[in-house]
């Protein structure tokens, strides 16, 4: 079964999955990116393995930034600060971009919000749940620093900087100069903008700039013959198939041997920035925890409400109460057995 992000851990905890670590041959295991192994593991077992890893970025038009006269970051080290980013948006607006920023709001409240916008929280030093105990989100998701970052984020909408992007063309049609979205849009953007396309880090909301990671992964449901199921997974994990998948959706190939031959994520590649985020630890994985199903919904709702103008502190507190309520209702998800 193909499962998105951390949902696998909810299925695993419910007893619907069987671990796959015994199926993976040593040669393949040593070739997998560490982030892919980490992504599939929880409670001492590996439950899933994906073909690609992922990342989120701020795509930009070089011409627009030059025209507005703003500094262009070279990588994660000198990412725009939140205050600087406000200035960038205001200057772009003055330069003629009525709606300078596109955040793919049209994808809507679903896994996209916690995937693409959670870096705001991580960058401010917060998290979706307190990972030291996994018993509360209080203090992690609603800390003053997170609320401050969410207030920044809300400002983009309040100030009218954000394009609704109902047609998915805000960036490619040139209405917006910046587009905040995942790796999968790279090919389409490159085709539309050519050499004008820049791939930049998301703004730094205080602690350090952050990115996202993790993608869909194969899991095995309980009751299937692991050898048979593994045959299919092994087939898709062959180097040429992983390479084909990575080529098709611009994802980060899950095998080190394929990544080495992949130009996109190399030092001079178009998505070098996402490669850097994964290699240097700027990107953060969504919590590998069975409560993720609820966390995702609560965080998505919080972002939606903040976008719609709700007081950021109240929105984050509500998400915390939803998550904590779920943790409590499940006796804090004790390990099965």
């Amino acid at each position, binding site marked *: 079964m193909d499962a998105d992000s951390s949902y696998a851990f909810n299925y695993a905890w419910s007893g619907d999955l069987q671990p796959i670590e015994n199926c993976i041959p040593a040669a393949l295991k040593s070739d997998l990116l560490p982030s892919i192994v980490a992504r599939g593991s929880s409670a001492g077992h590996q439950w899933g393995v994906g073909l690609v890893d992922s990342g989120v970025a701020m795509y930009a038009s070089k011409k627009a930034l030059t025209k507005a006269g703003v500094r262009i970051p070279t990588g994660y080290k000198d990412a725009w600060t939140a205050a600087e980013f406000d200035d960038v948006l205001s200057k772009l607006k003055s330069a003629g971009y009525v709606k300078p920023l596109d955040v793919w709001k049209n994808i809507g409240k679903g896994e996209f919000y916690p995937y693409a916008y959670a870096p705001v929280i991580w960058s401010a030093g917060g998290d979706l749940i307190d990972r030291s105990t996994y018993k509360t989100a209080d203090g992690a998701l609603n800390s003053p620093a997170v609320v401050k970052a969410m207030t920044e984020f809300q400002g983009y909408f309040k100030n009218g900087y954000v394009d609704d992007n109902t047609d998915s063309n805000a960036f490619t049609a040139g209405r917006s100069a910046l587009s905040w979205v995942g790796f999968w849009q790279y090919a389409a953007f490159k085709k539309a903008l050519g050499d004008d396309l820049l791939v930049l880090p998301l703004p730094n909301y205080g602690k350090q700039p952050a990115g996202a990671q993790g993608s869909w992964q194969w899991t095995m449901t309980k009751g299937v013959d692991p050898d048979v199921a593994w045959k299919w997974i092994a087939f898709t994990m062959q180097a040429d198939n992983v390479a084909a998948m990575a080529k098709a959706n611009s994802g980060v190939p899950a095998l080190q041997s394929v990544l080495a031959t992949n130009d996109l994520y190399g030092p001079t590649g178009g998505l070098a920035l996402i490669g850097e985020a994964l290699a240097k630890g700027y990107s953060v994985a969504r919590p590998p925890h069975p409560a993720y199903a609820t966390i995702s919904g609560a965080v998505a709702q919080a972002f939606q*409400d903040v976008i719609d103008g709700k007081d950021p502190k109240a929105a984050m507190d509500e998400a915390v109460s939803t998550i904590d309520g779920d943790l409590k209702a499940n006796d804090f998800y004790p390990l099965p057995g």
Partner: protein
Amino acid sequence: MILTPTTSNTSVRTDEPGRRRRRRRPQLSSWLFLAPGLVFLAVFLAVPFAIAVRLSFTNQRLSSPLPRRSVGWENYRALWHDAAFRRALTNNLIFAAVVVPVQTGLALVLALLVNQKVRFVRFFRAVFFAPVVMGIAVASSVWFLLFDRQNGLVNGALDLVTFGHVHPQWLQSTHTSLIAIMIVSIWASVGFQMVILLAGLQDVAADLLEAAEVDGATPLQRFRHVTVPSIRNTLVFVVTMTTIFAFRLFDQVYIMTQGGPLGSTDTVLLELVKVGYERQQVARACAISVVFFLIVTAITVVQRALVKERT
């Protein structure tokens, strides 16, 4: 949950005691004819609802290795304090309070219009009925684009007519989102009510109308004192149906707003799906469905007590 309006008047036969032997067979056959319907109602409505009532007193999850245990009235108590649920219920009530009279009234006007003996009347009937054929999911997806505040056709037209002075935010604003949903809902289903009322109108006795005309009644008087009383039962049926549909509001908001912005279009059924599937709290969702069932039943019963059908 599917709610079936209780509109059919099952006429109970009161046979004389002397005809006992003859009564048996028709009763058996009537039960046989009823059987498929009853079996389906039992399997897909009564039994699931009984299970829902039972689960609403437990902590049942969508999928969990933890054992299920009884929690008494906890789910109902939590619901009582749940601001989101109250908001959703309020939205349902506002929606019903506006949509039921407006939609019934509009359906009646349309039915009267297409009941005239003029040319192309069949064409107009088809046009007014077309949105019903389209399906609410498709209609919602199309209206979602029409209501786009930047590039939508609705605001484009408003700009043109008002020279850019009226530019509502529609689905993006808490003030207009529910109005937009109402517009879509009425547009998409008024044709259905129109057809039912049209059938009622065509049953109005022509001689009664003629007699009234001969007696010197104005068209308005004829409508008020002959037509409306004649279609009374149909009107009651339409109002009941529309009320139940208004409470069932889900498809439009699920597709167009997901209950937003800030809960302004949240509905009870949307809340139920969110709680039951997103948060996996099946027991709590069952409690919502039980409360919801009781509220809708109460409203329908009160409504029918106020305006009784006449035979």
